């Protein structure tokens, strides 16, 4: 990325402002929906909650997407479309196989871990835009949830949650809980709890015992999202550990924050040892096998 040009510098400030305002709008929207509601809701009327939910979340997501896209280098931009395609294709297959989980954020989490929170946020937001354009417009209001998932995956990578195999599911659990909390006001105030057949039945069960609609959609989200994200993060960490380290370390974000640590090949069951054991080239190839070369202390790239 060239930073020497003055218009680019000026845009940098503008982009930061976009991202900051977007984040503030999303947080303010969430706090208003959670704290400002119970009193008005008693009459069975949401007041402005659904208006605030749709405008605040959409505006925040658009600002973050617009602010992040300029910062990303071409390699990351090239990664985003394929990651979105992975999200959508795997999500569709999970639905057609009748899986109890969504599995529609594998690409978002991959991009977050490999290219950082900004790239993860963009991938998440655009996944829901494309999902809305190709499958069902119902996905559009939930774009903010995907943004949050991408951002949290990025910070999980940055904080070293992918350096150990067993830490990734924990990051998934936290992401899932936050995703459930963020998306429950959308399900409650925009869709009245009716987002899908099975989910609606669970919301109905919580309503039957006297919970408010927001509480019911929150409980429903907490039943499905954390499980989904634990499994998704586990799948992602398995895939990433199976990748040759030269693939992973091609991303500047991975190198800068040491996302996988130096010891990552020891901690994980990679494919490389199996290949080496099956083949006949075990003692001779010290330069050919990627996983071995990074074990021997040399960092892959400077």
């Amino acid at each position, binding site marked *: 990325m060239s930073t020497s040009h003055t218009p680019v510098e000026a845009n940098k400030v503008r982009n930061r402002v976009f991202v900051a305002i977007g984040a503030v709008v999303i947080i303010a929207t969430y706090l208003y929906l959670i704290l400002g509601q119970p009193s008005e809701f008693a009459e069975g009327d949401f007041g402005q909650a659904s208006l605030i939910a749709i405008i605040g979340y959409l505006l925040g997501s658009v600002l973050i997407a617009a602010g992040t896209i300029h910062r990303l280098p071409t390699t990351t931009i090239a990664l985003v479309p394929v990651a979105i395609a992975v999200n959508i294709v795997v999500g569709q297959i999970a639905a057609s196989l009748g899986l109890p989980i969504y599995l529609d954020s594998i690409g978002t989490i991959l991009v977050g871990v490999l290219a950082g929170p900004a790239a993860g946020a963009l991938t998440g937001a655009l996944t829901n835009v494309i999902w809305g354009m190709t499958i069902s*417009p119902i996905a559009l209001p939930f774009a903010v949830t995907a943004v949050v998932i991408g951002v949290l995956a990025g910070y999980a990578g940055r904080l070293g949650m992918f350096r150990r195999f067993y830490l990734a599911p924990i990051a998934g659990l936290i992401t899932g809980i936050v995703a459930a909390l963020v998306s429950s006001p959308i399900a409650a105030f925009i869709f009245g709890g009716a987002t899908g057949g099975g989910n609606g039945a669970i919301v109905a069960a919580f309503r039957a015992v006297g919970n408010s609609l927001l509480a019911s959609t929150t409980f429903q989200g907490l039943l499905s999202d954390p499980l989904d994200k634990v499994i998704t993060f586990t799948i992602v960490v398995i895939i990433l550990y199976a990748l040759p380290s030269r693939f992973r370390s091609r991303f500047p974000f991975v190198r800068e924050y040491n996302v996988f640590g130096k010891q990552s090949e020891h901690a994980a069951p990679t494919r490389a040892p199996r290949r080496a054991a099956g083949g006949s080239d075990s003692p001779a190839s010290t330069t050919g096998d990627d996983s071995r070369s990074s074990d021997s202390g040399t960092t892959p790239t400077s």
Partner: protein
Amino acid sequence: MTTTLYEDRESAVHRLNPVTKLVAMLSIIIIVFAVQIWWVALGIVVFVVMPAAVISGTGGRLLSLSLKLLLPILIVLVLLQGLFFPEGTTVLAEFGPARVTVEGLMFALGIGSRIAALVLCSLVLLLTTDPALLMTSLTQKGMSPKMSYVISSTLQIIPAFQTRAQSILLAQQARGLRLKGNPLRRVAAVLPLVSPLVLGMFTDVEERSTAMEARGFSSPATHTSFVVVEDPLGQKIARWALAAIALASVVLSLLGVFK
């Protein structure tokens, strides 16, 4: 682009500038959510969205799509809010823990009419607007060309990825992968599908980014467009008017006028 809902036809709605249609869609959604009166939302659907679909010749597709996408949600909504609305006081019927209340049904009507307007409005935009043209005209209005690249190329590679995923699935099944059985086993079956897909994705990315760099993708210079989308003055005025109405409805709503 077979993945999108777009239907290539010749009509007045198709000829509108894509940005005008997008602004109209967003304004209608905002107005519907701001005004919060069920007959306003249904009125917009009946007198604006449906005529637009009929004029553009996409009425049949709109009907079948909305039956597929909207009907399940509306049924769940009516059952959920009609039967389980603890805040309701006017009880019409009672079945054990489930109570049919007037308040619950009115609530379902309010939410349902808004969801219907949201979904139908988006569908008309998608059915009558070529995504590539929408991206081009948004870029001409100042959207980043990177954004339009990401959206357009995603729409193009999804069919290829679907084919690839299907062939991976078939190949793994030929090697003995079982997709039936308990849920846990089915979740485990996803891994042999996803890892080849993601590995393939990395090779794709490498080729693409080299090709993009070679064509000056990240150049800070202004990008010119091959297609210039027409934008008559009348539509510009219409867009500003729609945006102003939407803004006014939000302000009035926040002031509590529609209560």
